[in-house]
Each structure stands twice: as C-alpha cells, then as structure tokens.
C-alpha cells in the first residue's frame, strides 16, 4: 500500500521508503537508498535513445561538495530545494569556454542550449568608495537563483531586443563572486543589445544570452523552479578581464598624476 508522504511522494508501507520515480528515499536516514545514476545528455523523444551521454553527473560541481554526494537529498538543503523526481534541482549552466548557457530541467532533460557571454565592461557608475569600476565577470561556482516569489526577483521586464536587458528581464542569482573576489550583487542572466552582438555585448557583470533563452527559463521556472546557476570554464575570461582592468587602472592613475603635476606646476608659475 502506498500513501503520499515527504514532498507528496508515495510511501511504500512495507519498506517505509518514499518513491521518487528515479529511486527510493529513506525518510529515516534522510538519504536516497541508491546513488543518482542520471547520466545527463539529450534523449531522442522518438526513440528514447541517448543522443549525447555524459559520464559524470551533470549537476556535479567540484566547488560545491554537496553536489558530489550521489545519495544526498537536494544537497542536504530541503528547506531551500525540492526534488520532484529523485534527481537534483533544475539547473542553469553557463560555460565560459563554449559561450553557451544550458537549462537542465529537474527531471534531467535539457530544455535548451543557447549562445551566451559574460563580457564585462571595466567602468560603471558605482556607489561611494568603488572608484567607477565593475567587479568583472563571474568566477566559477554554483549560485542560487533569487526565488521568483521574492520582492524584486524579476526586474527590467518589457524592454526590446535591442534594449539593455531585453524583453524578459533578469533572472537574478545571489552571492555570485566577481573577478575582484568580491560579492557581485545584482548579477543574473538577461538578453538585450541584439543589434550589438547580443550575447557577446558587454554587461556590468551579468551573463547575456538570447531572448529565447530567458523566455524559456521563465516558462520552465513557472512550473519547475530553476534554483541554481552554475558558472563553469570562466577562469580564462576572468583572468583576461583582470589584466585589462589592471592596465586601465594604471593608465588612469598615471593620467591623474600627470594632471596633478600640471596643476601644481601652473600654481607655482602664478
């Protein structure tokens, strides 16, 4: 006999385990009874065969040890995540080398892969004490998506494809790390600037992609919350930005010093 229990899953009365589709969960132990054997990749909807199969768990992230435990329930954080089918929560994965963003639904299917970039401007208007510089591109890591029901979860909705953020607004992430090593508040995923290279156009820290990508994320998130953004292979981009930013800062410091000397010289002349 089965009855609905933890996260509305059926509980087997004989074993006391909850059925999650892919595997059984032991409420007594707080863990799955078998490892997550989802291989990732894309499944042909007509033949059911894997078109592309990965050997590692697509959710696994070396910087997030919780993702490496194949027996854990939602990274041991049940207050934050749910797991509708026994696999990990849905994920957005940005690849800084391939310049793509991939949306993996919570059932493990790939909703799509789209062009994306994390090209970041050097300058931006900042608050006091920040010297008009951005914090650069996002460092590799797994960051939580701002929940859709939180105040200000989506901003800048309703622009055009050529506007700064595009028509679908920003999917925010929390606690992202910038190239400067500091927390990058307000970062996220958005489209826009389609007339200027779209995904490759500069941002103030965000990942820029296509309008179709953000639209799909918003559609999927409406029924199946997208909980994390995983940034991977972005180290080269981060290093390149750091080098350019250092050169710009040095040039500007040198120009300021030259200006200071010129003024001092002018004053001495008078």
């Amino acid at each position, binding site marked *: 006999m089965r009855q609905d229990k933890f996260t509305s899953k059926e509980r087997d009365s004989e074993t006391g385990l909850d059925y999650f589709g892919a595997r059984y969960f032991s409420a007594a132990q707080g863990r799955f009874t078998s490892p997550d054997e989802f291989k990732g990749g894309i499944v042909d909807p007509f033949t059911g065969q894997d078109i592309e199969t990965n050997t590692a768990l697509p959710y696994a992230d070396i910087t997030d040890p919780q993702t490496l435990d194949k027996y854990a329930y939602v990274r041991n954080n049940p207050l934050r995540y749910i797991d509708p089918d026994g696999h990990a929560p849905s994920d957005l994965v940005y690849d800084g080398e391939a310049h793509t963003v991939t949306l993996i639904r919570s059932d493990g299917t790939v909703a799509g892969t789209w062009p994306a970039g994390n090209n970041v401007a050097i300058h*931006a*208007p900042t608050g006091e004490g920040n*010297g*008009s510089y951005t914090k650069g591109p996002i460092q590799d890591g797994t960051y939580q998506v701002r929940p859709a029901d939180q*105040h*200000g979860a989506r901003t800048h909705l309703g622009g055009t494809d*050529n506007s700064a953020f595009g028509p679908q607004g920003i999917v925010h992430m929390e606690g992202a790390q910038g190239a400067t090593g500091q*927390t990058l508040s*307000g970062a996220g995923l958005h489209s826009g600037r389609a007339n200027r290279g779209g995904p490759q156009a500069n941002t*103030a820290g965000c990942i820029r992609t296509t309008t179709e990508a953000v639209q799909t994320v918003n559609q999927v998130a409406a029924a199946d919350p997208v909980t994390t953004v995983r940034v991977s292979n972005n180290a080269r981009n981060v290093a390149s930005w750091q080098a350019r930013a250092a050169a710009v800062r040095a040039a500007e410091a040198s120009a300021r010093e030259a200006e200071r000397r010129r003024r001092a010289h002018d004053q001495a002349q008078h």
Partner: protein
Amino acid sequence: MTKHSINRARRATSGAVSAGLAITTLLFLQPICHVLSAAAQTPQDGKRAPVCASQEQDTEHVGDWPGLHSYYARYKHCGFNADAAEGISEVIAKLVVNRWGDLGTVAHELQTEQGFMRYVLGGVNSTVDENDLNVIVQEVPKRKCPIGLATFCKSLVVRARQSKKETNN
C-alpha cells in the same frame, strides 16, 4: 526647604537634564547611525541595508537629471550592484543624448560633489547602446556646456571614445 528635598529636587533636575540630553543625542545621532548602518551593510557582507532592496527597480523611474541626483543620493551607500549599474548607465547615456539642455539643473551638484560627477561619468561605459556613444563623441563637443562644467563635458567625450574602443575589442 530641607536638605533632603533640595537633594531630591537636584536629582530630579539632573535626571530630566540627562534624559533630555540622551534624547537630543539620540535624535542627533539617528540620521548618522542610519547612514553608517547603510554604509556598513554593503553587499560584500551579504546583508544589504533595507533601502538598497529597491535600488534595482528604481533605475526604471529615473527620467531627468534631478531624478538622477536623487537616485544617486539615495543609493550611493549601497555598494556595487550589476543590475542597477547597467540600468542606470542606460539612463545616464539617454539623459546625455536626449536631455542635454537640462544638464544645468544639476550643474551645482556636479561641481560640488566629486562622487556624483564620477557616478555620471561612470555611466558612459561599454554597456550602453553604441548609437548613444556615437552621439556623445560626435555631438557633445558641439553642444553648449554649462558654465563651470568644461572639464566634465570634456571627460564625457573622452569616456565615450574609450567605451567605443572597449566595445569593439
């Protein structure tokens, strides 16, 4: 009046003075504490001052130069925010391109607040529409610069030129 009642009256007066001083001090310090706590609760700490929560959405409500200065004054303690920075850059570029004639309304603030001037110059960057950068490079030198803002006007053009170069790299 007995010695005892005099002492009691003194204690009462002294208590009232102390209480008054405490209230005055609190009233005086309250705005300072507010500013300090806003400044202290930067995003780097993972905690943001309550006022900063609306920083991202409010970029959409800035429509003129005085509005930009109010936005700056309200959020300058909030630290860097990628969403707000990109949104307000778009606003600043559009103000320079479309509302140049009203720049004089914040001439005093640009002259007296170095932070505000840096903020506006920071808004002309490689995230903004390249058409706007082109207009700034080509048109601003021909436009009348408000009195006292010659350095600012020149810097705007330099910043637009640099941003165009950064965009094309």
